[in-house]
């Protein structure tokens, strides 16, 4: 539920609760006012009638449905007048008016008289109906106005909040954000806090990234030095023991430089250095990579089943496309068994590579983490699948890894946005024809 709706509901709840109370008060006040005015008038009428009677002029002057009667009393009561209100003068519960009767006790020409005048005033139900009408309209108006204006107001007042949310939503660790100016105290506080937090995050991220990038780059030179010296050393006169020591060193250096290169690559992808500018024919990449691995497939005597659809275009940087295919196919070959099988399926919406191999020792999804290997002592660096995952993140693809004995199944789902659909292609081609 939106904030504005909560406020609106609360407000309307308050109105709904207070309205009957105020209506009741209103009704009472109006009735009392009418009664008071009428009683005062009737009293005057009584007095005037009594005066006329004393003069000996005619008394019974009907006047706006009120009339005055004189009743001779044995004695004057204690109070000087009595008021009666009859809510149902017609006795049928449908009266539209109630009768107000005022009796004044006074002495006229020496005799005690009760002078009584009645008049009709609107029945309280009538007044109530009128009030209910009004209240209904009022409520309707208030609800409409509140609902509309609250939305409008919240648009205005919460606009800055919404901008802030949007900024936070699109927050990227790579750059600081500035929050919109606002004069609402709470939002000011929120923005200040968020600014502090995001700036700190950006600074720390940048520092860490810088460090790792610098470290990786700085490592390149010493690695090159060690490798060069080892190569020179292996050409000097050495005996077998020394040779095997050198071989181990070579090996370690090789691994180190591979790790380093992969880490540099990963950080480059994180820095979006592989922005997509055009689309490429992924089917061609797949074919090329398969061709490049031909010799190694032969050596392990691996049967390759291909189902490559033609003309599959994707939005992906060519370097990444190459790397993705290389890593996946390389893994499929490397973790395969002698005389194994690889099944490559490329369709408009997905790439699936199935291969035979030993069952994985770790849960398959964990293998996408950096330095995770199915077999810890294996020769691999453990970054291949991390790179695959990163490539898929950069391109908005989904990648999954399942093992259904005896097959390892790696599937990459291309996102709808990265697939160039047929209609677009046709347009593209007709455009090409037209320009041609």
């Amino acid at each position, binding site marked *: 539920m939106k904030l504005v709706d909560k406020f609106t509901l609360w407000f309307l709840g308050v109105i709904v609760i207070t309205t009957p109370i105020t209506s009741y008060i209103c009704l009472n006040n109006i009735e009392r006012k009418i009664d008071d005015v009428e009683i005062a008038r009737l009293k005057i009428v009584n007095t005037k009638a009594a005066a006329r009677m004393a003069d000996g002029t005619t008394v019974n002057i009907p006047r706006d449905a009120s009339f005055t009667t004189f009743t001779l009393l044995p004695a004057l009561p204690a109070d000087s007048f009595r008021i009666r209100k009859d809510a149902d003068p017609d006795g049928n519960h449908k009266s539209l008016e109630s009768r107000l009767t005022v009796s004044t006790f006074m002495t006229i020409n020496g005799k005690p008289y009760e002078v009584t005048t009645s008049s009709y005033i609107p029945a309280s139900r009538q007044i109530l109906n009128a009030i209910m009408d009004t209240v209904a309209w009022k409520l309707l108006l208030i609800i409409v106005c509140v609902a509309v204006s609250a939305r409008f107001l919240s648009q205005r007042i919460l606009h800055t909040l919404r901008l802030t949310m949007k900024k936070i939503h699109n927050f990227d660790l790579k750059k600081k954000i500035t929050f919109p100016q606002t004069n609402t105290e709470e939002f000011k506080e929120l923005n200040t806090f968020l600014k502090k937090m995001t700036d700190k995050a950006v600074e720390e991220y940048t520092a860490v990234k810088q460090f790792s990038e610098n470290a990786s780059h700085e490592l*390149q030179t010493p690695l*090159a*030095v060690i*490798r060069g010296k080892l190569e*020179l050393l292996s050409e000097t006169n050495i005996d077998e023991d020394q*040779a095997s020591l050198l*071989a181990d060193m070579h090996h370690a250096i090789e691994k180190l430089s591979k790790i380093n290169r992969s880490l540099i690559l990963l950080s480059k992808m994180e820095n979006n250095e592989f922005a997509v500018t055009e689309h490429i024919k992924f089917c061609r990449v797949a074919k090329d990579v398969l061709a490049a691995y031909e010799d190694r497939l032969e050596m392990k005597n691996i049967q390759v089943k291909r189902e490559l659809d033609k003309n599959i275009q994707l939005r992906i940087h060519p370097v990444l496309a190459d790397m993705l295919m*290389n890593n996946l196919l390389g893994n499929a070959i*490397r973790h395969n068994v002698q005389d194994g099988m690889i099944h490559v399926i490329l369709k408009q919406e997905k790439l699936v590579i199935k291969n035979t191999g030993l069952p994985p020792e770790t849960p398959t999804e964990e293998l996408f983490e950096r330095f995770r290997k199915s077999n810890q002592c294996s020769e691999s660096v453990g970054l291949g699948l991390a790179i695959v995952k990163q490539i898929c993140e950069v391109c908005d693809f989904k990648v999954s890894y399942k093992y259904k004995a005896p097959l390892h199944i790696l599937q990459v789902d291309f996102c709808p946005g990265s697939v160039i659909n047929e209609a677009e292609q046709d347009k593209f081609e007709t455009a090409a024809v037209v320009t041609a």
Partner: protein
Amino acid sequence: MKVLVVEDSKEIASSIHDFLVREGYICELAYSFDEAQEKLLLYSYDCVLLDIMLPDGNGLELLKFMKDQGIQSGVLIISAKDAMDDKIRGLEGGGDDYITKPFHLPELHARLRAIYRRKKLSGSNIITFNEITLNTDTLEATINDILLDITRKEFDLLLYLVVNKNRVLSRQSIATHLWGDYTDNLANFDFVYQHIKNLRKKISAANGADYIDTVYGLGYKFNASKV
């Protein structure tokens, strides 16, 4: 061949120097932009090994300088950044080839030779060693004028061995040369071993001398002194 190595890291420069001198090349070193400029103006070189990241200037500017001065040396760019744009800029700026640190010295040498062949030997595409002849255009190898039936990979391997004759070539360096950077996730050694084995078979089938030695624990060597 006369080579100028422009590289600020003294150890790398000295490694390259030692390697190339053993090959019989004349090799000079420049540790900075200014030094390199000076040497390029005073002397002429067949090839320049150029590190892009120099303490007092960018190697790309040195490329521009060479262009402006009309210096015709071949250029092999060395860089620690294997960034695509760097590569492209370097090659567009007049570099002939590109290699990234950390590299294998034999690989550097093979690329240097290729540049030298293209640039200085007026695109000569024939490399001859004793009875072996390699044609880098047609990718044909002959032994005593008999055409060897070898694959592209085997041709590359033989060329690599011949160019780096009498050198110990580690399996890693051979693998990197043949399959590029995507060797990371493959057990290369078996593949290198297989390729070497096939190549030796084919050479001996054509009555060529068995030049390829296995150096225990380290790799292979094209032994030129075998007859």
